[in-house]
């Protein structure tokens, strides 16, 4: 049986009617015991040790052609069984939701670090040694563009927008701001490197991979290999972090599949950490010009956000920098430019909150600068500029407790204690400051399927190819099912991460929980209806709780009324509610920093995020998602920067010692508050995405706090010591 819901109308809060009380509750991750004991198998670990092992050799020029590969010398090395130089090798991973192969062909070099050949040997040690020794000769091109300045930018017509007249608004403004901000290339740096084991049985391929969006990845892999997607199965039950870097099929999967086919045996390929940095995805560097025009009270009359980003030739993705600027604040006159430099650098793609993560760094810094110039409190300034309707297309908003996030967050943080004059608070060597920023992230529903079976013994099974990349999917899909079917959580078994199951939205764009959860909801709703019919009652009269049906004031175990399994495949699709209203989750960040007056080093002392994102499905895993986003934000503010060599564009700091993600001591205890909210337009769960909300604006709260502490305004992220030190007051 299948059940389908297209979201053309707002939905009632059916989950809220249920009697179980499992949804929303703080519930530890169900797969937790496997993970903390080392028993959860990740992609590279499912083999039996007999697989051959592949290691990539990569390009060491920025642009040109491979003229010769020293195959013979390497084939003669001990243990080497194959060197794959197939034209089907990927230049770079597929972009998220691409659904087709990315650019292929190992001979045309487009960036330093591009995989050129896969050396396969009996052991890792042999393959690594041979790959290092592989000689590759090139015909290097003279016209490589290794920095954005080397290439005239292309402009994307649909993203050049002018509403009203911003120039005039700027010249008439009582207060105005016109500043340029820059953010560097970044990397998701998920802790599990990209890994695949490929196994062929005849013409059928099983790929054990580490991927976020399996239904797309299956098509991308099949298209890359030139085989029928029906012949390809991908399994990713455990994924060691993604943050966008595992959205699209990547070079190691295709390399492993080609090698396994050629050798007629299983092949394992794991990218080395430097290869993860060089040959997967980076977040583009950005240059952003923000203009704000305001009247004497600080009410915006105009807003401009222009962005310069980069990517390889042939890539459709470009960092959507101004995404949240369109709908966060009012102001009648608006202007946007979006320009893309085609560079010979590692491919740019989605990294946690593409758009907002960097766009809000600039916009929220600019708002702070405006607040300072206009003498208006930064929280007040935001409150004054929350528009009634979407400022560009006049759509109403769905639920939006943005103002409450600002005021309640400010209250809980003790914002009123802030001295608005910078550089006034001192604690020994340390200058202390408070800063804040808004958070906003558009909400998306994405088509999703899930199969739910209520077994005759009163247990249930959920099956979908949805992934859990640390997001809590195993737990929340169990909670939704338990709530709807009135089961204790431990009677619900959730099976994920296998393309043999019904195709889900995948994890990305913060839409995973809402989309895959809604497919489960739709299936459960129909199981309830079938059960009600069987019992001769209306569905809305059916009370299911703790594994029992309650009717006529008597309680009967479900197993007593079920003689057969009930199976329904739920299918959710976006509809008119995606078009008719602006859906987004909102929040506010508050940070206290201490800046060393001697060294310019910044330490975050405390930080609070207040968020409204519709129904919170599991307060514990949701809080962890927000922590994760906020900490990514702290990294962006203070330490994270991929450095490209100006000669050939290669990533100099392609390792975890030199690409500085925050470590434990960099992070204080963070506070996360969720405001009660429901969003009837978002999906039948009335939830909104939360995985990327936490990073939106987080870094700007930190740099705004640095300004309050020191009077130093860093517009060039990250705010490392060298940028803060010259502006510090005398000791």
């Amino acid at each position: 049986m299948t059940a389908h819901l297209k979201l053309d109308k707002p939905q009632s809060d059916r989950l809220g009617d249920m009697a179980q009380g499992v949804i929303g509750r703080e519930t530890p991750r169900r797969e937790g015991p496997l993970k903390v004991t080392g028993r959860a198998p990740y992609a590279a670990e499912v083999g039996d040790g007999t697989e051959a092992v592949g290691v990539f050799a990569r390009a060491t020029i920025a642009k040109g052609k491979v003229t010769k590969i020293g195959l013979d010398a390497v084939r003669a090395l001990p243990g080497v069984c194959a060197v794959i130089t197939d034209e089907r090798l990927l230049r770079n991973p597929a972009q998220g939701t691409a659904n087709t192969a990315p650019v292929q062909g190992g001979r045309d070099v487009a960036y330093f670090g591009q995989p050129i050949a896969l050396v396969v040997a009996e052991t890792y040690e042999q393959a690594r040694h041979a790959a290092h020794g592989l000689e590759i000769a090139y015909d290097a091109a003279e016209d490589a563009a290794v920095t954005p300045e080397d290439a005239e930018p292309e402009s994307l017509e649909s993203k050049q927008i002018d509403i009203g007249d911003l120039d005039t608004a700027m010249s008439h403004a009582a207060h105005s701001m016109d500043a340029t901000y820059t953010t560097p290339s970044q990397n998701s740096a998920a802790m599990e490197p990209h890994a695949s084991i490929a196994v062929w049985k005849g013409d059928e391929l099983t790929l054990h991979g580490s991927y976020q969006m399996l239904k797309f990845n299956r098509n991308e892999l099949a298209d890359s290999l030139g085989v029928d997607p029906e012949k390809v199965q991908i399994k990713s039950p455990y994924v060691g972090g993604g943050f966008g870097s595992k959205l699209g099929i990547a070079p190691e999967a295709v390399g492993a599949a080609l090698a396994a086919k050629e050798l007629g045996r299983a092949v394992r390929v794991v990218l080395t950490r430097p290869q993860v940095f060089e040959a997967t995805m980076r977040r583009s560097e950005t240059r952003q010009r923000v203009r704000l025009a305001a009247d004497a009270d600080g009410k915006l009359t105009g807003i401009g956000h222009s962005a310069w980003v980069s990517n390889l030739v042939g890539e459709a993705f470009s960092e959507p920098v101004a995404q949240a600027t369109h709908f966060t604040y009012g102001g009648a006159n608006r202007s946007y430019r979006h320009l893309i430099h085609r560079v010979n650098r590692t491919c740019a793609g989605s990294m946690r909150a593409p758009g907002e993560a960097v766009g809000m760094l600039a916009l929220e810094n600019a708002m702070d600068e405006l607040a300072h110039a206009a003498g208006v409190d930064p929280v007040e300034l935001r409150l004054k500029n929350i528009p009634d309707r979407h400022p560009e297309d006049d759509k109403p908003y769905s639920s939006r407790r943005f103002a409450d996030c600002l005021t309640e967050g400010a209250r809980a943080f003790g914002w009123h204690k802030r001295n608005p004059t910078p550089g006034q608070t001192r604690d020994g060597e340390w200058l202390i400051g408070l800063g804040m920023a808004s958070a906003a992230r558009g909400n998306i529903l994405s088509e999703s399927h899930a199969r739910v079976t209520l077994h005759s013994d009163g247990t249930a099974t959920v099956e979908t190819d949805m992934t859990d990349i640390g997001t809590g999917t195993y737990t929340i899909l169990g909670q939704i099912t338990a709530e709807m079917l009135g089961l204790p959580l431990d009677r619900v078994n959730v099976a994920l991460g296998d393309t043999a199951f019904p195709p889900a939205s995948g994890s990305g764009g913060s839409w995973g929980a809402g989309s895959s959860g809604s497919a489960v909801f739709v299936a459960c709703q129909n199981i309830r209806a079938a059960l009600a019919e069987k019992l001769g009652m209306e569905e809305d009269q059916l009370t299911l709780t703790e594994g029992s049906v309650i009717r006529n004031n008597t309680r009967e175990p479900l197993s007593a009324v079920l003689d057969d399994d009930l199976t329904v495949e739920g299918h959710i699709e976006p509809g008119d509610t995606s078009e008719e209203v602006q859906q987004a989750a909102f929040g506010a960040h508050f940070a206290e920093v201490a800046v060393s007056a001697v060294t310019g080093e910044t330490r975050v002392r405390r930080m609070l995020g207040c968020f409204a994102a519709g129904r919170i499905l599991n307060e514990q895993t949701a809080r962890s998602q927000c922590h994760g986003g906020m900490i990514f934000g702290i990294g962006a503010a203070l330490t994270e920067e991929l450095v490209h060599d100006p000669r050939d564009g290669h990533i100099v700091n392609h390792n975890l010692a030199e690409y500085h993600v925050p470590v434990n001591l960099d992070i204080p205890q963070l506070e996360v508050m969720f405001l009660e909210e429901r969003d009837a337009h978002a999906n039948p769960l009335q939830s909104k995405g939360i995985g990327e909300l936490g990073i939106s604006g987080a870094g700007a709260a930190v740099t705004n706090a640095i300004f309050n502490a020191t009077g130093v305004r860093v517009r060039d992220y990250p705010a490392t010591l060298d940028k803060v030190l010259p502006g510090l007051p005398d000791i």
Partner: protein
Amino acid sequence: MSLHTTLWINGETYALDADPRTTLLDAIRDHFNLTGSKKGCDHGQCGACTMIVNGRRINSCLTLACMHDGDEITTIEGLGQPGAMSALQEAFVRHDGFQCGYCTPGQVCSATAMLEEVSQGWPSHVSEDLEGPAPLSEAEISERMSGNLCRCSAYPGIVNAIRDAAEGGTT
């Protein structure tokens, strides 16, 4: 070429015949199929591969297996099982001290050995006093765990879990 090494892992003897270039991490993951220990970098930069060797936590990717003949090694598999977790493992679950779980075996091994270091009075970079007992403050836990990266950024939960387990609590 292959070298013979005998390792004591989680109380059992394992005989290894392997390429001398094989790291302790790869020996245990690839040759003995104990895959609980993770490889996040292979460069001693992330802590995912942390094991306890002769009582001390080390990055097992930075040492060759053949250097450990006769050594006593504890991996995550030796600390507990899903149905019989150590107090620290239980606390990690309770406090959500992880998300994707990939850094987690390293965090748990590291924390297990770290608590032992504290009980022996070893100071850290943030200790006020280099002698005498080191009180287990939040900063002490964070500093001592800063060799274990977590990109999911479960640091608040990790600190709470360690403190909870150290205090023998179940909060």
